């Protein structure tokens, strides 16, 4: 199964051609994929913000941003510039250190989680063995940042928002992890690369969504709750809490929260597409296309074709899910806090446990379909 471009190897070969040692070549290589992914994440946020504005406008029969660039595509950049040059205010009675550290603690784990997002066989920063578990662990750091900023603002709405956010993300982490566990059970590996490869046998038919429909729905609901998007945006419920833990924030610190929540949304969409929708896989297996074109699978043309199709498919699936998330946000009402916790603890948790049990049973009964 080892096909696809290995850019790192080619890059190292290229630099060693100039007489550099492989260690130096490795050091020059290291920051490149990180920068690339960071830029990709930020551009993804800009696109998502534009989509959010346009789709919300369509849902409310408005036009939305129109004057900044064609169809208002430059509007998110204008938003970002505005936040960048705004005055940075720390309230007089707030706790300065914690107030500054809070947004950073919210953003950094989300960006770190991009480490494991694959766009192709070798197109990811690092194929760490613990893979998807790293994301679950990192996303559990976020509540600390939320509690920190909620506390440091010295404002009752902020504190309540922070507490709500922490409670919400703790309760939805458990069904989330359990539904990921069912996938891991079928893959026999935590690595995101293995998870996608396990789904690449027969194109669209071998995607995990057919074998894990319950897990897919549970994971999607929990991912939305972890991103604090409507219908689960209780931590910042405007009518009740002003803006929750973000109430006192302005300028770049607010922008960090904003960036964090959108990067998290894109990350969740990417992970849903990796776990359940075949990741970079094309609905028709690439081997079949190669056979149709009478080309060997290792031909350079096919390799470049596979890599570009992989990136396009991953982004396409992710943005399809982002679109659904935005549509949900602008068409559903917010749940109450008791409904939210009931849904998490009394419905999703038992269902995901049962799903895990059934997956384990099916794996033993039909090892050829559910991984052996």
């Amino acid at each position: 199964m080892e096909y696809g471009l290995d850019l790192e190897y080619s890059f190292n070969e290229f630099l060693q051609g100039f007489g550099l040692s492989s260690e130096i070549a490795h050091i020059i290589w290291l920051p490149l994929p990180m920068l690339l992914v960071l830029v990709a994440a930020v551009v993804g946020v800009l696109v998502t913000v534009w989509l959010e504005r346009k789709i919300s406008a369509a849902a409310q029969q408005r036009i939305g941003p129109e004057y900044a660039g064609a169809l208002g595509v430059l509007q998110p950049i204008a938003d970002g510039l505005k936040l960048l040059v705004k005055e940075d205010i720390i309230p007089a009675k707030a706790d300065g250190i914690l107030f500054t550290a809070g947004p950073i603690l919210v953003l950094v784990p989300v960006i770190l989680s991009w480490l494991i997002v694959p766009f192709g066989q070798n197109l990811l920063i690092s194929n760490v063995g613990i893979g998807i578990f790293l994301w679950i662990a990192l996303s559990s750091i976020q509540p600390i940042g939320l509690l920190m900023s909620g506390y440091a603002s010295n404002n009752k709405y902020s504190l309540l928002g922070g507490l709500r956010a922490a409670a919400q993300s703790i309760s939805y982490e458990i069904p989330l992890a359990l539904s990921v566990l069912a996938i891991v059970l079928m893959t026999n590996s935590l690595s995101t690369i293995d998870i996608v490869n396990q789904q690449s046998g027969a194109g669209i038919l071998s995607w995990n969504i057919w074998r894990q429909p319950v897990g897919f729905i549970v994971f999607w609901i929990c991912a939305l709750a972890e991103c604090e998007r409507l219908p689960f945006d209780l931590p910042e419920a405007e009518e009740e809490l002003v803006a929750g833990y973000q109430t006192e924030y302005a300028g770049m610190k607010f922008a960090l929260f904003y960036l964090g929540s959108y990067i998290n949304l894109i990350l969740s969409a990417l992970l849903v597409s990796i776990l359940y929708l075949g990741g970079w896989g094309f609905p028709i297996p690439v081997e079949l296309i190669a056979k149709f074109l009478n080309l060997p699978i290792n031909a350079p043309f096919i390799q470049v074709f596979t890599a570009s199709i992989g990136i396009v498919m991953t982004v396409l699936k992710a943005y399809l899910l982002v679109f659904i998330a935005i549509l949900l946000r602008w068409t559903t009402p917010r749940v109450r806090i008791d409904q939210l916790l009931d849904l998490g603890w009394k419905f999703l948790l038992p269902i995901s446990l049962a799903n895990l049990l059934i997956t384990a049973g099916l794996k033993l009964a039909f090892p050829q379909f559910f991984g052996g």
Partner: protein
Amino acid sequence: MSIAITTQFICFTVLSLVVIIGALGVVLLESIVYSAFLLGGVFMSVAGLYLLLNASFVAAAQVLVYVGAVNVLIIFAIMLVNKKEDLKPISDIKSRRVISTSICLTLLSLLIRVDLTNVWSLSSPQNSIGEESTIRIGEHLFSDYLLPFEVASVLLLMAMIGAIVLARRDVMSKDISTGLPVDQELIEKSSEPLLTNKN
């Protein structure tokens, strides 16, 4: 020294310093909120040390359990009962300090003895399993370490039931600490500001 070893050395020094200074801060700082957040930093640095030892699964588990669950709950509890009150002076503070210091020193000497007597270096580099460790930990948890693992879960269950009994006062007709009949009505609290103003 090669670049890899230098990087490892710098990481180790920074992480160890953060662990030591952070732990001192947890104990010595006046503000309990700062202590709680510093504790999270210490847990994170310990996870970093595990990562340096090639134990990535243990590192992730450390972050998930200690930072994501234990530390969040500690901070949660502190923020829910964030009352600034002047603590009563303890009468026999001197003898208490002597006792706690001696206990801590005994523990320290025990740890130093363990450190000095144990052989830490692996017999051969092949013994380090790296990425395989997840599978090996799983195998051990379901074979020779099954009983301790399950007993630990019973302990957690007991703690959880205890917490529910303490939190839900209506499950018992008598208060467990005072023996008085429990008021089953909702407890009406006098309204206080959530955060006391800092002066």
